[in-house]
């Protein structure tokens, strides 16, 4: 079994060692994704994961902004009341209620 210091034959502190280690880790992670998802094409497993991540993005955005921008200004309340009234009138006329 290889010891960490002898991996790639480079001293553990050197930048090249860290880069290679990171690259190896990335490759191992990619292999793991391919094995777990059973999909070889990065365009497909990539989008499979991106779909889940984008839904997560929506969830995080929703949680962070859950209570933001809820307050209406006084003028907006007036406008909305008038707007709602005319909307209701239009609906009444349209559906005959």
């Amino acid at each position, binding site marked *: 079994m290889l010891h960490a210091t002898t991996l790639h034959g480079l001293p553990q502190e050197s930048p090249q060692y860290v880069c290679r280690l990171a690259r190896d880790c990335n490759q191992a992670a990619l292999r793991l994704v391919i094995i777990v998802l059973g999909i070889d094409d990065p365009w*497909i497993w990539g989008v499979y994961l991106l*779909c889940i991540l*984008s839904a997560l993005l929506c*969830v995080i955005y*929703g949680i962070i902004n859950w209570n933001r*921008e809820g307050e209406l*200004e006084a003028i907006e*309340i007036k406008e*909305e009341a008038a707007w709602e009234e005319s909307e209701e009138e239009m609906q009444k006329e349209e*559906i005959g209620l």
Partner: protein
Amino acid sequence: MNLLLLNIIILIYLLATLYLGYRGWKSTKDSEGYLVAGRKTHPYIMAMSYGATFISTSAIVGFGGSAALFGMGLLWLTLLNIFVGIFLAFIVYGKRTRKIGHNLNAMTFPELLGKRFDSKFIQYFSGIVIFLGMPLYASVVLIGAARFLETTLAIDFDVALLIYSVIIAAYVIWGGLRGVMYTDAMQGTIMFVGMVFLLIMTYSHLGGITAAHQALTDMVHMVPAKFAAMGHTGWTSMPTFGSTWWWTLISTIVLGVGIGVLAMPQLVVRFMTVKSNRELNRGVLIGGVFILAMTGIAFVVGALSNVFFYQTQNNISINIAKGNADSIIPIYINAATPEWFVYLFMLTLLAAAMSTSSSQFHAQGTAIGRDIYETLTHKKGGESILITRIGIIIAIIIAVILGYILPENIIARGTAIFFGLCAAAFLPMYTSALYWKGATRAGAIAGLITGTLVTVFWYLFIHKAEAVPLGICKMLLGRDVLIAQMPWPVVDPILVALPLAVLVTIIVSLMTKRPSNRHLETCFKGIK
């Protein structure tokens, strides 16, 4: 087939729909003020309503069938559905649409655009585009539901279409116009539960995520030679870059529908009905998860249906469905899931069709009544309302007739055509209406006409999939398409019409007089 159980389930569903419709309507009437009632609207209701309207039988049955054909590459559309259709639509477009819509007292999408650019032409021309273009989309939603009924009840497609049309027409005419979000939310919930069950069942049936996907990957040798010749490389890999298969997947299905959603009239209107941006913030959370559960699951299951049919019948889905991709999901559900789930899924599709159809027909009705008739005649009230009602009935009749005459394999394509048309015609004008004060009336009109005409021209003379069956190019010029050299016959109009419309909107706006500051102040009041 236990018809008694099926009828009881459908009856309970319809009664629940009626009850919730009544409750939603009554709560609005009984409140002290509409504003208070509005503030009580739960973001779950709003987001599910948007999602249920957005996702129809077309997405589940039509595009699910396309996924069985094209493979998991369709997930790029799901990504756009979530990121563009929810995240960008709610945050970038929704908030400003809500504010400007309120500032201008706009009730419909064409009215918002017409008032923003102070142009009646924009309002009625947009109304015409919607009224003429939407029947195709409305029709494929009906077809999607009818295909499922046809397979499940083993009845003739024509009879199935008639049954669904009668149920949906009764719903739209009697209660759908009230725009009650409670029913949409219930329908969205049923859709969510149905789809999650479908995913769990599919994966567990095929041995789990890894085994199912690996089995699909290993099926590459089953790709028919004629598909491989067009660029199909398997169900878990992208088609060959630049091939017919690739252009169709990317330009027509992914971009056409993925971008077009931003300018869908029946969806834009929903932003104008929310009371504050807070509802939109919350809606993003629910909408994102909902869309993942809808199109994400439909496309994964659609692709995996190939594994199921390969393992059970040594064949691929499209062959099992005798070449009609629209029938793949219904056949798969009936073959691979227990009977109780078939009923649940039928409700899922009924819910998906009802929630989308009601807003489609309503959008067409208001397009002809409010946007075309009122704008051209300056008459409001009685006659306009009558025209709106007649418009709705005509829209339903056209959709049903189209349902009978449209060919097979039409659901995904029909949806993509309407989404693409909306993107090219409305998106440049809509985006500049919200974000560019320098956009002028002439620029908006030029962009609208360019987007519409280039799209129509491209379908009639260039894009082979439509130009050949329509035959106008052949009749006028004696050949199937104007440019036969690849890749033009397979490039979707959106890739040409949308950039051209954007360019024309910008150039003409820069060359013409900017709107008055007073008008702009009215439009952008309260927007920082």
